[in-house]
């Protein structure tokens, strides 16, 4: 699809553009973050000056034999000021930390909601799914995620750049040639740091890979669902073997990286030893010559040492920003993905006669960019589901049944052909209204950690219609169980919100999702394998109720249990993306082809019994 072409060229924004993105974001959601950052930058740059001026002032006072009172006043004032600057800087930093992290949660929420505003086919497509996880990592991961690193890295870069300028001024006062020498040393340092950064970056991918492998083994070991298999098959040695193997992988990389760390750090130490030696000698001669006082000696020496420190810090901030910018590019790319248009359409479903008739006209559809390239499911599918008809969809796994359902309910758009409702192209209706037409039970079970009411209505608690909810539960055969256990609409499901939250068994979950579909009471009902987890009695109960709750609805039933076809008006037998047979159970049985063979295969054991018994 078009979104995939766009994805190939993920925009790599400049670091400044990424920083501007966060400025816009925080300006909108929490401007205090920006205010705090600003204060932190200014105070952070001033702070080191206090540290080098304090000894100078002290020595000057002693040298000049200043009166005690005056000295105390100067030093006391200076000390109090530095105390305030220091304290305010740190507390602003802490405030910023809390606020930007809260908005990081907000960003995660926005990103998740964004994924729901995409078309489902987009959300599901391989490229976008990959991007999704990259974005997730960029926001998740606490202080080490892209968002945190960008915020803190930017502030640190500014602080150090500003300090660098301030110190430069101090040093330029001392001597321009000295300043020039220091600048050259800083440049050498820059060169060394860049090499170091590049090396680290070259390892990053491998490190992430090794980390992923380790976590994967960790998850495999800790997954309690596998605990039975682990014991029965004696997998302990296998697992611990894999664990040690991945640990070795991590160790090898850590050794490589730390060895380089040590090497580059040693280079830096040699450089700073040479610098210190030079500074000591130079300042010593200057003091001897009388052009520098003892106090200034201390000041300048502090400035020389500090100066290269800022260069180093600037470099590491820059390295952090370079690494983090990627993650931010992912975030921005995802948030900019085009969304599904759900609102516009010239027609409205409330004008339609319901239940509707739905027609697939020459529908072609293929999955894009799967492992085996594009995979075509339908070439030319033609099918009309008549108003109020009960349709059964059968066929082996992979015949295209579930894809058909996804096309039907609007999760996918046909590549070719059209889907019509009462003869009108469905794209003339707002997608939002199209969704309202369907009550679907999908194969996967989604139970949200919210209240029973919210789960049934899939809406905010204040909009839950309790009476309707109870009716739906009753039809799905859960009312009694719930009432026995004292469960009401306000009870929470799963253990996340309360310790006595409701946990349903597999069969109960299927019934619950059926209840959700019944609550919605939409004109088209689609059930995709709704009885797989049910025992025979419960299964036959669902069958018994099916005709009742599908009354006056257009309904589609998918099941491997062919018994379900008996109460359908028409059976569609699918094979490799095409409809191979169509008709009532009796017609197809008389025809004696694919469907009949399948049915006989499944029923032979039952029938045999019936014949003999």
């Amino acid at each position, binding site marked *: 699809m078009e979104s995939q072409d766009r994805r190939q060229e993920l925009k790599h924004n400049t670091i400044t553009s990424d920083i501007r993105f966060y400025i816009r974001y925080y300006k909108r959601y929490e401007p205090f973050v920006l205010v705090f950052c600003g204060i932190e930058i200014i105070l952070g740059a001033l702070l080191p000056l206090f540290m080098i001026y304090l000894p100078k002032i002290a*020595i000057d006072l*002693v040298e000049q034999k200043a009166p005690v009172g005056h000295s105390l006043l100067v030093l*006391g004032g*200076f*000390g*109090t000021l530095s*105390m305030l600057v*220091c*304290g*305010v800087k*740190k507390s602003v*930093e802490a405030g910023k930390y*809390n606020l930007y992290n809260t908005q990081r*949660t907000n960003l*995660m*929420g926005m990103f*998740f909601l964004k994924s*729901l505003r995409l078309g489902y086919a987009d959300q599901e497509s391989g490229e976008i799914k990959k991007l999704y996880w990259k974005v*997730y990592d960029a926001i998740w991961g606490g202080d080490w995620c892209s968002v945190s690193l960008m915020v803190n890295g930017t502030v640190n870069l500014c602080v150090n750049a500003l300090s660098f300028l301030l110190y430069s001024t101090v040093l330029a006062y001392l001597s321009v040639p000295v300043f020039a020498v220091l600048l050259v040393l800083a440049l050498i340092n820059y060169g060394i740091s860049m090499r170091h950064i590049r090396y680290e970056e070259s390892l990053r991918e491998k490190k992430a890979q090794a980390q992923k*492998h*380790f976590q994967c083994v960790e998850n495999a*070991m*800790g*997954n*309690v669902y596998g*605990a*039975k*298999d682990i014991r*029965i098959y004696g997998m302990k*040695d296998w*697992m611990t073997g*894999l664990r040690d193997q991945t*640990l070795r992988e991590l160790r090898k990389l*850590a050794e490589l990286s730390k*060895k380089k760390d040590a090497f580059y750090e040693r280079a830096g*130490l040699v450089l700073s030893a040479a610098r210190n*030696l030079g500074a000591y000698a130079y300042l010593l001669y200057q003091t001897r010559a009388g052009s520098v006082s*003892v106090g200034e000696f*201390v000041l300048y020496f502090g400035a020389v040492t500090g100066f290269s420190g800022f260069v180093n810090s600037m470099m590491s901030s820059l390295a952090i920003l370079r690494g983090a910018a990627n993650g931010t590019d992912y975030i921005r790319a995802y948030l900019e993905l085009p969304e599904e248009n759900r609102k516009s359409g010239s027609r409205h479903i409330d004008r339609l006669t319901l239940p509707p008739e739905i027609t697939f006209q020459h529908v072609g559809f293929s999955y894009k960019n799967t*492992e085996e390239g594009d995979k075509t499911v339908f070439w030319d599918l033609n099918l009309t589901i008549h108003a109020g008809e009960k349709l059964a969809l059968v066929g082996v*796994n992979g015949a295209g049944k579930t894809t058909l359902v996804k096309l039907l*309910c609007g999760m996918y758009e046909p590549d070719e052909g059209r889907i019509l409702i009462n003869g009108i192209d469905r794209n003339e209706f707002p997608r939002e209204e199209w*969704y309202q037409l369907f009550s*679907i039970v*999908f194969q*996967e079970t989604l139970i*949200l950690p919210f209240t029973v009411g919210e789960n049934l209505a899939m809406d*905010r608690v204040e909009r839950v219609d309790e009476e309707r909810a109870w009716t739906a539960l009753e039809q799905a055969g859960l009312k009694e169980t719930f009432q026995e256990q004292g469960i009401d609409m306000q009870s929470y499901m799963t253990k*996340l919100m309360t310790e006595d939250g409701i946990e349903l068994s597999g069969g109960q979950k299927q019934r619950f999702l059926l209840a959700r579909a019944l609550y919605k009471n939409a004109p088209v009902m689609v059930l995709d394998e709704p009885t797989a987890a049910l025992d*025979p009695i419960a*299964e*036959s109960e669902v*069958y018994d109720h099916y005709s009742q709750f599908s009354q006056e609805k257009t309904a589609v039933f998918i099941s491997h249990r062919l*018994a379900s076809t008996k109460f359908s008006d028409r059976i569609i037998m699918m094979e490799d993306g095409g409809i191979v047979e169509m008709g009532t159970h009796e017609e197809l049985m008389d025809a004696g082809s694919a469907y009949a063979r*399948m049915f006989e*295969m499944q029923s*032979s054991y039952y*029938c045999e*019994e*019936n014949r003999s018994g």
Partner: protein
Amino acid sequence: MTADYLLMKLPLREHCKNMRKVLKYAHGLDRCYFPAMGASLLLKVSVPYMELMLSAYILDGISTHTGIREMLTVITASVVVIMLVQFLSQAIFHRMEVHREQMYCLYGCETQTKMLEMDYSRIDSPKVKELKDRIRKDNNWGAGINGVFWSFNGAMENLFHLIGAAVVGLPAAGYLLRSGTAVVWSLLAVLMIVQVTAVCLRMHFRRQGDCWRYHEADTVEEKEETLCFAWDFAGQESYNYKNGKDIRTYGGYGLMERWTTEVLRHKGFRNAMVRAARNDAGEEFFGAAAGAAANGGAYLIIVAVALAGTITVGNVVRLAGAFSRFLEAAAGTLQDVSRLAMAARQQMSTLALIHMENEMYQGRLPVEKRSDGAYRIAFRNVSFKYPGAERYALKNVSLELVVGEKLAIVGMNGSGKTTMIKLLCRLYDPQEGEILLNGVDIRKYKQEEYSRLFSVVFQDFMLYPFPLAQNVAVSGSYDSGLVRKCLEDADFGERLASMEKGLETYLYKDYEDEGIEISGGEAQKIAIARAIYKEAPFILLDEPTAALDPLAEYEIYSNFDRITGTKTAVYISHRLSSCRFCEKIAVFHEGELVQLGSHKELVADRSGKYYELWSAQAQYYGG
């Protein structure tokens, strides 16, 4: 469980015990880490004091007009020595970082490793669940075991600073005593008061911050105000992109919004956030202010001493530097120790899990190896309740598995079918009755050897994101020919042939991006191949065809005899037609074995449970 567990007051003795415990455990993981780190830190800490002494020497040299050549020699020698000390310190440090990262990973997965060997019956027990919940909460804040390393190293470093500062600054005490004027003493008193106050206020805010951090919302109202599911939905347990279908068609967007971004705008959440920011700001303010005050105060006092008496410029720098470092290190030590105490306390739950002992009786009897597979297993009046449950999952079950026989177990959901399998493989021990293998209670056998008797395909079997062959052989080394044959027997041969990397193909994409996604039916076939590969005398299949379509199901049925061969087999299925492969059928109802016999016998009993189940399904096929 008590709320706000980490905030409860603990006697000092308990804190010490916690710290000792966690440090001992960490030390056990890597015996060279702490000693080597200690040496590295000692060297590292000595550097600023050497520099301080050097500065003092230079400044005094300037005032006393010492010869420049002599001074340069001393300076050069000192700078070189300092550099060498730094070399050594950082060399050790970087090497130890590798060790620390390894320890972090190893420790991090100790709880998972524990899951491999813990009694199965305890994994799901309320006690372990509670402990895991505790671990999750304990690790909500802080850096896990790294928090322990960092705070302990910090405390060591500060302690070395105290010593270094004391050694370098000791002469200050002499000056103070000799020429301490009233001004000096009162300055000292003020500085101390400022320091103590700042430290106290800092602790106060830290405590307030902890109250916010470690507070566990336990009322539903509070949770509704403050619980944000953004993280959970976006990527943790609750996430599955497939849920997007439900959310779209059921119009659940608003509901998702309410529980993610909207919570952040709730009054409760905002208040909590502002409170947190305020507490942290308070803590940081007083911490930083105390540091700055120590620095400024030290100069103030030393200058006052210098002005009152005779003290050289060099000594001013030296003593003020030492003094301020001493004060900072004292506050730092206090803080690191309190952090260590908290970090250690947060590890107690993890250690409790790691040290949890198995309770199941471990027999020592070897299981006799028989090539004819003549093992007889009998249930004698077995009753069983799941840990923490009130209802019996199995009640007074007596049943015999005859060698080579195929037994089917049928019944409604929750009737005890799977429980019976779990007891049979001794994942649980029954509370009443016994299970016998060749007449001997299975508890008396070595568990490891007993487990070898069974190949099981559970309903919720698990495959792992590792190579296909390893999944079948459950080992890093395997017999490729045999693995291939087993996969073919399980009807997976065709798919295997289509795989580029064959047996080396990774399953799923978690470990390897090149891995392949498999459908539920394919996974089931691989699980069956794994069962075949094991070649155990008993083969137990729990709903092995649930995810299969009728054709694939038929294939498995047809192969059933080939798969099980002469082995004793137990087969659970909701599709009663499949039971007809079995000579004997056991019908379970509400935990009891209500019927036992061949299909013919059972279906003849019109009032029996089997007939009811059978006809519920058969009616649709009666055509």
